[in-house]
């Protein structure tokens, strides 16, 4: 075989082999990155779920605090009323 043709054939095989090896490497890297993205997505979903739960608990806590405040106010009013009634009752009994 002519030396030039042999050179061209060997060069072509080398280039094709190199391109194939690069494509395989690219495939591996892309797969690895996809897996990393999926893992990250799972972590993000878990984090978002935790955030939502914390927000809901915070809202519940605010609502409970408001209710407690209302109950405390009503209790204080009732205490005052009971004291007044007790005093009035004592006064009437002494008469």
């Amino acid at each position, binding site marked *: 075989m002519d*030396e030039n043709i042999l*050179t061209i054939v060997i060069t072509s095989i080398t280039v094709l082999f190199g391109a194939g090896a690069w494509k395989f490497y690219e495939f591996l*890297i892309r797969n690895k990155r996809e897996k990393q993205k999926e893992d990250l997505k799972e972590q993000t979903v878990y984090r978002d779920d935790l955030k939502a739960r914390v927000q809901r608990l915070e809202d519940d806590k605010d609502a409970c605090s408001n209710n407690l405040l209302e109950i405390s106010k009503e209790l204080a009013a009732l205490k005052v009323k009971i004291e007044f009634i007790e005093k009035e009752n004592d006064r009437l009994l002494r008469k």
Partner: protein
Amino acid sequence: MIAKYFKKIKETLLYFDFQPLLFFWVVSDFLNNQVLWTNLSYWESVGQPNTYWLYFSYLIGSIGMIISINNIKWLARFVSYYLVLYLFSTIRYLVNIFVGDSETFTIIDVKNIIITCWYAFMWCWILFKLKKEILHKALK
């Protein structure tokens, strides 16, 4: 201490940008190109007219790399082009040594084979780094 030194060398080769080094290398390659210092008639007179055109092809590759040093995609294309030329020359040289008529295989041939293979490996490494950087940028 020696292990630490080699670790640093490895990290430098892996993580540092190489475009400035490539730029200086290619400028040197461009200035050493025989097309600038000889003409076709000279190569015809020594019976190697194709060598002139091979050098001319190298010159195109060198100019392309200098021009596109800031554009990594085009730089990778020109490095690929240059590497194919270099592989062709290297394989041509090896074929000539192992298939050709030359009877003696001297120590000079061994030295030349090692040097030319080393340069081929260097261009492969440069192209791999460029392609890897392009790939990682695309994946971000």
